[in-house]
């Protein structure tokens, strides 16, 4: 076993560390998916697990996402804790019927007799020059489904702690890993098996003038924007939503009570994105606190362009700064 504090860990390595930790401590944790075993995953998130935990616990599946989603459900009803990988979020859709109609419902349907402690992992988001369908961020589709948790880490430590929490959670979690920052930064991660709380936002930076709400890879640009704004004398609070469903509205509303201004940043297209729910919740819950409309900085309402134009689609630091300037001006 490695020493608790591991240096220079990327987000994807933290995912691997969390999987290894939990598999080492809980026999019921099983990893399955396409190319997860021998190959260690196309992003190497599951590398080494087959060697350490054997071919019965790390399973290469046939190429069938409905099957991956549904097999995990059957396993879960037998007390296993499957961590099922979709190779890219763009290939999760064939799994949706199983996830929506069964994983999210088994506990409710059977009044607690059976439940689904499953983690559905998928790398998501754009910006890595990938081919078509490899840049999806459709977290909103899952966030609208009762019975699911949707969790998005935005740093190596949070990837580690939130993934542990997701695996231990007795209900299904869609765990979306922002692949644009899979290897963007390295942090020291305490490999001590400690989970972080689900259903809770993380306030990454405190501030008084405006609340910046975001998650996933956009946390990077949002923090950069906060730095730039600080130079301009604007004090921005940065909140990483982390669990995009169910939503920790309390933390958001508390922040807005202080700042009175909100900019939401996400990569997914704007209409019907998770930002809409957050904006609606804040506009309803903090009506009297708001000094300016809640503004969203998001992807365009279109299909993620192929990579020559993907940068034109993605929200930029300057977009965030501009939006803040706009709400501050009011």
């Amino acid at each position: 076993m490695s020493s608790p504090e591991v240096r220079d860990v990327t987000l994807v390595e933290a995912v691997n560390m969390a999987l290894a930790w939990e598999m080492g401590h809980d026999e019921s944790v099983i990893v399955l998916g396409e190319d997860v075993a021998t190959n260690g995953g196309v992003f190497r998130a599951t590398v080494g697990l087959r060697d350490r935990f054997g071919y019965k616990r790390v399973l290469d599946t046939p190429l069938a996402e409905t099957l991956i989603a549904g097999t995990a459900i059957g396993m879960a009803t037998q007390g296993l804790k499957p961590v099922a990988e979709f190779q890219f979020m763009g290939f999760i859709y064939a799994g949706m019927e199983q996830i929506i109609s069964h994983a999210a419902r088994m506990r409710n349907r059977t009044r607690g007799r059976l439940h689904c402690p499953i983690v559905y992992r998928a790398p998501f988001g754009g910006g890595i020059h990938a081919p078509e369908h490899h840049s999806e961020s459709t977290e909103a589709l899952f966030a609208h489904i009762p019975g699911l948790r949707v969790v998005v880490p935005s740093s190596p430590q949070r990837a580690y702690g939130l993934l542990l929490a997701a695996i231990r959670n007795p209900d299904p979690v869609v765990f979306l890993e922002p692949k644009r920052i899979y290897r963007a930064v390295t942090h020291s991660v305490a490999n001590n098996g400690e989970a972080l709380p689900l259903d809770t936002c993380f306030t990454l930076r405190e501030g008084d003038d405006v609340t910046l709400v975001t998650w996933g890879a956009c946390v990077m640009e949002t923090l950069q924007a906060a730095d730039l704004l600080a130079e301009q004398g604007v004090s921005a609070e940065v909140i990483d939503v982390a669990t995009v469903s169910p939503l920790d509205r309390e933390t958001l509303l508390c922040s807005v009570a202080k700042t009175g201004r909100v900019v939401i940043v996400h990569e997914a297209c704007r209409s019907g994105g998770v930002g809409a729910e957050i904006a609606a919740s804040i506009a309803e819950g903090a009506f009297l606190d708001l000094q300016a409309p809640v503004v969203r900085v998001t992807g365009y309402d279109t299909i993620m362009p192929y990579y020559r134009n993907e940068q034109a689609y993605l929200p930029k630091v300057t977009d965030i700064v501009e939006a803040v300037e706009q709400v501050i001006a009011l």
Partner: protein
Amino acid sequence: MRKSQEFHVDSTRYLDELGKPLDDLPAQASDIERVVSAYRNMVLTRTFDAKAIALQRTGKCGTYPSVLGHEVIGTAIGQSLAPSDVFVPYYRDQAAHILRGVSLCELLLYWGGDERGSAWKHCPEDLPIAVPIATQCCHAVGVASAIRIRDEARAVVCCVGDGGTSKGDFLESINLAGAWHLPVVFVVINNQWAISTPRSVQSGADTLAQKAIGVGLPGHIVDGNDYFATIEALDTALERARGGKGGSIIEAVTYRLGDHTTADDATRYRTAEALKKAWEADGIKRLQNYLHQNGLWDANKEQALQAECKSTVDAAVEAYLATEPESPTAMLDYLFESVPASLQQQRERLAGKSDGGES
């Protein structure tokens, strides 16, 4: 240079339509007690079925799928499964559920619009009724995978209709069963119809069992109104599965004798003749004849059984009708292990309403 590879599926049938053996019967026929109790379960199932339809017609139950024509298959499944095995049903498996220990009241609650109808007390590992067609097949291979991962001598039976064999979930699952050598027996209940869609529209293949060939599993066809053919195939397949020899597919051929559900009117799309002909092959009557012919049954026993079934069903109906609906807050209480903070307000609102008496 041309090479040819051969494959096959076998079909079995032991009794003719009048219950006369066409051949030497399988070993299962000598377990008289089991045979008689199979018959008893078929009659109970049919009695229940008629009552459930009547309840629906009088507004006391929701849309209900009649099990008419499936009683033999379900009974054989229920008998061949060991308590430690896992049953993964679709929605027309009443006969098997009863043998697994699901109470008739639970079945009525389910179709009567109450989630407690799936909180089965006596077979806690069985999967609940699956409404989205064929989706349960993936669960079955998941359960079977868990069994294999833990090296247990248990097996899974998964039911699916002829319509269900067209859906990816079934097809992907049988492929996994073959690839991973899983202890799962798929029973394709070919009742010739998927609502109004006849078997011939469902697939261009002559039989549904031959889908087994494409995934490296043994495929077998049985007359699903022939108790001996059906129970023999199931016993064999389950033994094989429990012994680590892998899965299989059994196509049990029968006919849906009722409407698709109480919401359907089958006269729109099928002829009275076809139905009449199908009734002649009815498996309950056939087994009854067999029992009579072999001195194992008589009119008195039949009368007693009918009375017993009626009172069992009546008692269940009474218990069902006496069950108060759950509090509306239940719709949030079982969503997650505990109610998340974000839902507390909604829960309070529901609780307030259920006190207040909302119209």
